[in-house]
């Protein structure tokens, strides 16, 4: 389980005077479930890229359990992300031509981390997300099923944190609810911190805390009342 501590963060892109993201101080407790909302262009995607180590930070600290990934090299950030962060994206980024289980295992295989325990876990996770045909080719699946495969992939290496970027945006309401359930249940079951970027008010309403972004700043940070415990 990982907790996040951000200090004095400022992300600027060349050609823009105002920073794309500026966070003076933010902490997310290990095991908490946080929603990130805001209009498009408010800095949400940059936030995701920064906390997952996809983008390099020049100013500020990004500490996961007091490990500052801002100081890591690119390969080290890649390794950290592979081992600690489970990513779920709006577009599933699954690879056609491979089966469900092959897709779940692909990143681990490329990182030479696919032990027999991991392979067994991949099959278990597919069961947990409700897919019982592990050998089915990914291109023959529905979008809801694809996102479930993507969730299984994100959880494969028992990440300390799950970061989901608009996980329900490209799904219909029913599949969206199912995916939301899975994310919430699995984060609890696996003991992972959960950070969800979403416009989906039903999904957001089920989390514990909401961060609202505007123009690269957090303008609101509030606990959500009545959230499922």
């Amino acid at each position, binding site marked *: 389980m990982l907790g996040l501590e951000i200090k004095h963060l400022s992300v600027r892109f060349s050609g823009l005077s105002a920073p794309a993201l500026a966070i003076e101080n933010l902490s997310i407790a290990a095991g908490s479930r946080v929603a990130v909302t805001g209009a498009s262009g408010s800095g949400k995607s940059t936030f995701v*890229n920064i906390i997952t180590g996809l983008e390099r930070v020049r100013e500020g600290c990004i500490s996961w359990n007091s490990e500052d990934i801002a100081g890591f090299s690119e390969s080290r950030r*890649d390794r950290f992300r*592979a081992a600690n962060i489970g990513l779920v*994206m709006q577009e599933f*980024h699954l690879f*056609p*031509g491979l089966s469900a289980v092959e897709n779940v295992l692909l990143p681990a295989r*490329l*990182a030479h981390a696919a032990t027999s325990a991991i392979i067994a876990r991949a099959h278990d996770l597919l069961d947990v997300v409700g897919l019982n045909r592990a050998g089915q080719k990914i291109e023959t699946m529905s979008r809801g099923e694809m996102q479930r495969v993507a969730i299984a992939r994100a959880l494969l290496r028992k990440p300390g944190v799950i970061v989901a970027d608009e996980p329900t945006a490209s799904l219909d309401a029913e599949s969206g609810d199912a995916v939301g359930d899975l994310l919430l249940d699995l984060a609890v079951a696996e003991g992972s911190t959960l950070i969800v970027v979403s416009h989906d008010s039903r999904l957001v309403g089920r989390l514990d805390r909401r961060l609202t972004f505007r123009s690269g700043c957090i303008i609101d940070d509030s606990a959500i009342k009545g959230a499922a415990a």
Partner: protein
Amino acid sequence: MIRFILADLRRLWAGSIVVVLLVALATALGVSVILQERALRLGSARAADKFDLVIGAGGSETQLVLSSVFLQPSALPLMSGDVLAKLAADPRVEWVAPVGFGDSFSGYPIVGTTRTLTETISGGFSEGQVFVSEGEAVIGSNVDLAIGGEIKPMHGTIETGGHTHTELAYHVTGRLQPTGTAWDRAILVPIQAVWHIHGLEAAEERDHDDHAAEAGDHEESVHAEGAHEDADHDAEPDPHAGLNENWTAETPGLPAILVKPKTIADAYKLRQDYRNGATIAVFPGEVLTNLYATLGDAKQILVAVASGAQVLVAASLILVTVIHIGQRRRQIGALRAFGAPRGAIFGIVWLEFFILVAVGVGLGFTLGYGAALILSGFFSQSSGVNLPVGFAREDGMLAVILLAFAAGLAALPAVLAYRQSPAQALRV
């Protein structure tokens, strides 16, 4: 990783096939040039191998070799018959055989020669036996005639508007074993018959000394026993006439003499002795070597053209792969985001490209080999010279060089993919 690469290649099958074909065709072009040139060189060298020393009247050495070894029709100057007699008596000579050209039958050259040469040239008969009288002939392994078949010699060839000799028709008595040379397409007849058929015409062309010599030969052959008297009067050849292969100074003029010296030293001495104004003596292998030196330049040009084609293909492949990587940015970015290390991304892109090129090179070698085989087949059919198509060690080097080049080329898109920032790639 391999499964992912294969799935990826299957997904991009059309582009993959185009890349493989491009590489295959460019490789095949280069390979076939090299193989064909080598086949020509080896084939003609093997064809010339049977002939240690060729002696002819003064003139072009190359023409002498082309006519005697490859049986290319041409009008060679004649040398006096006493050269043959002298050679036959020379202790350094194992055997000597005159050859006379000029006639043909259905496109096959008719070569007048001796029983010794006929028996030696292919190391034996696949059927039948050697000729024993003027009206008999032995055919090369590729001549489409049967034992007992009739051959009506034509003076010159159909292409040059020859006429058919009516003086004599040969009957096939034997077929030689294959030699892989132009002689497989030849009809071998007693040279005595060639002289007799051409007796009158030759007399007009030759100076009167030779005419006298030939007439003398007819008289001389009387004491060579048998029913030879018939051949006596006025160059009317007799198919049943026996053969006299004891050469004398009165032997008629000859275009070429094939000599089998006893030793290599003898070969060099004989060549020295018969290189005087009246005759030339050549080692066919040596003449061919000179010829190849000239052909070598042509090969260089062909190789340069083939290399140019390969460079063009390489350039177009660079273009294709750079565009391709641009299109795959999201996929590569996603792989990175989900935790694939950069090294693995490099490996995937590099291997994908390298596999395509390697398959292309392999296919190209096969295609080039096939093309060379087909070309050699055509050539063998028309000339009779067997062109052995085969790979040599240096072709392995060529394959290694091509693959090494491909490995370097594949690194370019791989580095592009490696350097790509996953966050930017996913944003696009």
